[in-house]
């Protein structure tokens, strides 16, 4: 077998298995998101949703985008809103984010809306591709196929290879292997598909009955030269698959060569070592079979292949006639099986006590890419290595993600419930502050308001007079207060003289006329200057009035804000509290059920492994007894000889 590092260890291999497979799956949905930032961002709030989406914080991204879209749709003239430019992208992004947040049903609806909407041809094709991907993810291959049939040519260059690869996968999932071959064949040389297309093509051909050709493609993948961890894992997987096929076809020599291509430090090395040994054993080369099986005996005993090897190695020694060694190894296997059954019992107990779920929900573990491995290091947690295969399975990953999402949602709801209490207190404080102040403020405001209205009316009157003077000059309108007093006094004096019934003395009448004439002369001569001055004053007054108006509207706004800061929230808060309470109740029940399901999956898996070990125990006991008998008989025969 290929050995890249002589100091390999089981833990290292396990770590790789997790990193390459499990973690890829855990992050798969997140990475599936392809919404990018627009060339030129016109809406900062949309940019904010992208900020969260790029960090894979889907809840924030979706809730902000939902709010934005709802506000946009509620506008009278949405085309004037800054989101309008990005509307297509935003609607697409909702589905994208919902898909990443594993809300496939809503994502499907959102994407379907895009498909049925008035969107450009390429956008529609991209949306159909994503919808088909959702169906494929959700194990609905027929729906995925129907979706793909709606793709219309021409398909953009950027989508073509992805689309064909998906089509190939979907056809395979529908059992239409022959068609899948036709789709996957041209993808062999596609950049970035090194090995992926070949692996699927090989499997599709084998499923289609084209065994020789299929094996050829798998063989090519099995000899890939690459440093990419995923491609190397793919290469190992191809070798394992091909080796199994060859074993089934009893081509043991070829099978062994293929199994030996699997890396010793890779995630599939234990399976490959075991099967390589069986290929030798099938040819009765038991001494050769002992080489991989002995290697396996040095590995972590929780590995299923290692447990197989615990029985296989003494079996080979027995076949080679080394019965005493076989008996010793069977004895060691029995001890190991008993010990592991004890560990499994303890693990099952811990899971039933809820320790497994508690550990899975620990936040610090979720921040770490190797969290599954670190689980094992924690006290009072079940033996994680027995759960690796289960934890790598799609069902478990979906259930675990749901459980963690529910846990996060529960915390959010609890925080919001506390927030609502804080809002209530805030509103009560505002009310306590404003309620005593507002009546006095309102009374004073009413006084000022009537005064202001009066002044505004005066100003309006002045303006009307001014405009009239521009048409028909009225110098008397521009008299000063002193001049008006003098005019009034002259009129009074004239009237008083008339009331005496005596003729007015000529000198007095002349003096009155002179003074009136003087006043009239001053008004006529100074009229233009006074008119200009009045205009300047009117402008200054306008500025003051404008300032007054602004202060007035600021006051009205602040007054309104003061009221709005504590009035009209009661119903909203009560409704939200009820909704949060209802959601919390539902969510807690759902989380319990989801957690219970995870525990059942884990316990079932451990029970399965336990039952397997019990079977192995029985086999080992009989085989050990048989080996001892044979060893004793052989010893006796030896002595006779």
């Amino acid at each position: 077998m290929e050995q890249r590092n002589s100091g390999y260890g089981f833990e290292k291999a396990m770590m790789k298995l997790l990193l390459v497979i499990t973690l890829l799956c855990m992050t798969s949905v997140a990475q599936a998101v392809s919404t990018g930032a627009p060339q030129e961002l016109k809406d900062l709030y949309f940019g904010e949703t992208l900020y969260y989406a790029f960090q894979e914080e889907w809840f924030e991204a979706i809730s902000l985008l939902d709010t934005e879209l709802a506000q946009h749709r509620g506008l009278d003239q949405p085309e004037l809103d800054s989101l309008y430019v990005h509307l297509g992208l935003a609607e697409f992004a909702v589905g994208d984010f919902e898909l990443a947040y594993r809300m496939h049903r809503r994502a499907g609806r959102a994407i379907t809306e895009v498909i049925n909407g008035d969107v450009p041809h390429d956008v529609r094709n991209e949306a159909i591709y994503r919808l088909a991907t959702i169906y494929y993810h959700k194990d609905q291959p027929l729906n995925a196929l129907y979706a793909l049939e709606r793709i219309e040519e021409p398909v953009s260059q950027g989508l073509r290879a992805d689309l064909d690869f998906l089509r190939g996968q979907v056809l395979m999932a529908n059992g239409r292997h022959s068609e899948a071959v036709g789709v996957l064949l041209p993808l062999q040389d596609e950049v970035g598909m090194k090995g992926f297309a070949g692996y699927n093509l090989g499997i599709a051909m084998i499923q289609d009955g084209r065994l020789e050709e299929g094996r050829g493609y798998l063989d090519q993948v099995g000899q890939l030269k690459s440093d990419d961890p995923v491609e190397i894992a793919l290469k190992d997987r191809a070798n394992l698959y091909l080796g199994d096929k060859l074993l089934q076809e009893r081509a043991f020599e070829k099978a062994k060569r293929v199994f030996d291509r699997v890396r010793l430090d890779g995630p599939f090395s234990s399976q490959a070592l075991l099967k390589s040994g069986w290929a030798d054993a099938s040819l009765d080369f038991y001494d050769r079979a002992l080489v991989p099986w002995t290697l396996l005996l040095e590995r972590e005993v929780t590995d299923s292949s290692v447990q197989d090897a615990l029985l296989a190695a003494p079996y080979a020694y027995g076949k080679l006639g080394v019965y005493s060694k076989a008996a010793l190894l069977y004895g060691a296997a029995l001890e190991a099986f008993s010990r592991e059954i004890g560990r499994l019992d303890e693990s099952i107990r811990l899971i039933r006590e809820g320790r497994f779920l508690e550990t899975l929900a620990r936040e610090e573990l979720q921040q770490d890419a190797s969290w599954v491995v670190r689980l094992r290091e924690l006290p009072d947690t079940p033996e994680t290595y027995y759960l690796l295969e289960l934890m790598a399975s799609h069902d478990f990953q979906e259930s675990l993600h749901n459980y963690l999402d529910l846990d996060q949602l529960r915390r959010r709801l609890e925080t919001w419930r506390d927030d609502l209490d804080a809002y209530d207190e805030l509103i009560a404080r505002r009310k306590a502050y404003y309620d005593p102040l507002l009546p006095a403020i309102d009374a004073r405001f009413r006084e000022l308001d009537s005064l202001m209205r009066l002044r505004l009316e005066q100003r309006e009157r002045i303006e009307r007079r001014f405009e009239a003077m521009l048409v028909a000059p009225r110098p008397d309108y521009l008299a000063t207060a002193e001049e008006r007093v003098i005019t009034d006094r002259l009129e009074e004096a004239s009237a008083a003289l008339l009331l005496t019934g005596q003729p007015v003395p000529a000198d007095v009448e002349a003096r009155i006329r002179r003074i009136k004439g003087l006043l009239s002369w001053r008004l006529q001569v100074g009229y233009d200057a006074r008119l200009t001055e009045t205009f300047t004053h009117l402008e200054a007054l306008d500025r003051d009035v404008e300032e007054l108006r602004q202060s007035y509207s600021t006051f009205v706004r602040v007054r309104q804000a003061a009221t709005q800061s504590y009035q009209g929230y009661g119903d909203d808060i009560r409704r939200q509290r009820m909704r949060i309470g209802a959601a919390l109740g539902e969510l807690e029940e759902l989380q319990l059920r989801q957690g219970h399901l995870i525990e059942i999956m884990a316990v079932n898996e451990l029970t399965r492994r336990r039952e397997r070990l019990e079977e192995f125990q029985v086999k080992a006991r009989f085989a050990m007894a048989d080996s001892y008998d044979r060893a004793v008989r052989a010893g006796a025969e030896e002595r006779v000889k």
Partner: protein
Amino acid sequence: MNKISVMLLFCITFLLTVPVGTVSGAAAPNGQIKGLDEQVQEIKGDVLAIAAELNQLEERLLFPSHTQISMFLSLAANEQFRLDSVEIKLDGKPVAHHLYSFKELEALRMGGVQRLYTGNVKIGEHAVEVSYAGLSAEGEELRETQQFRIQKDERPGIFDINLARHSISLQDW
């Protein structure tokens, strides 16, 4: 070709072909898993709806439009310097300070916009001071500070602070 999507599709097939059928098959009925999954999706939708309404309620209650001011932060296109921290002072008082994680920085580089501050100010003119610290691609320490005057009117104040390697700009939206 998008290698990641190929890897993901492969991964799904891969898991389906990895010999774990006995595990998931025996562990829990598929219908039960799907049924729960659909209920989880439903409740996610409910909580998202609550979040959207709470966002609006919170905004009305805490940040009325005539006093609301929001400062967003973005990076200039193709900027590769490492942003470590940003501080905003409003009328001389520090109102926001943020230390950047790797994920946050990547999100900014990809074109995301961070809402760094939302608060309340009076209508009128205000002084804003923006400072940032970071490291250039060549390892040079970067420190920039810039003062701005902003005008707040009756509408919500929305400002975009754009950072480049040697400059800070502020735009009223």
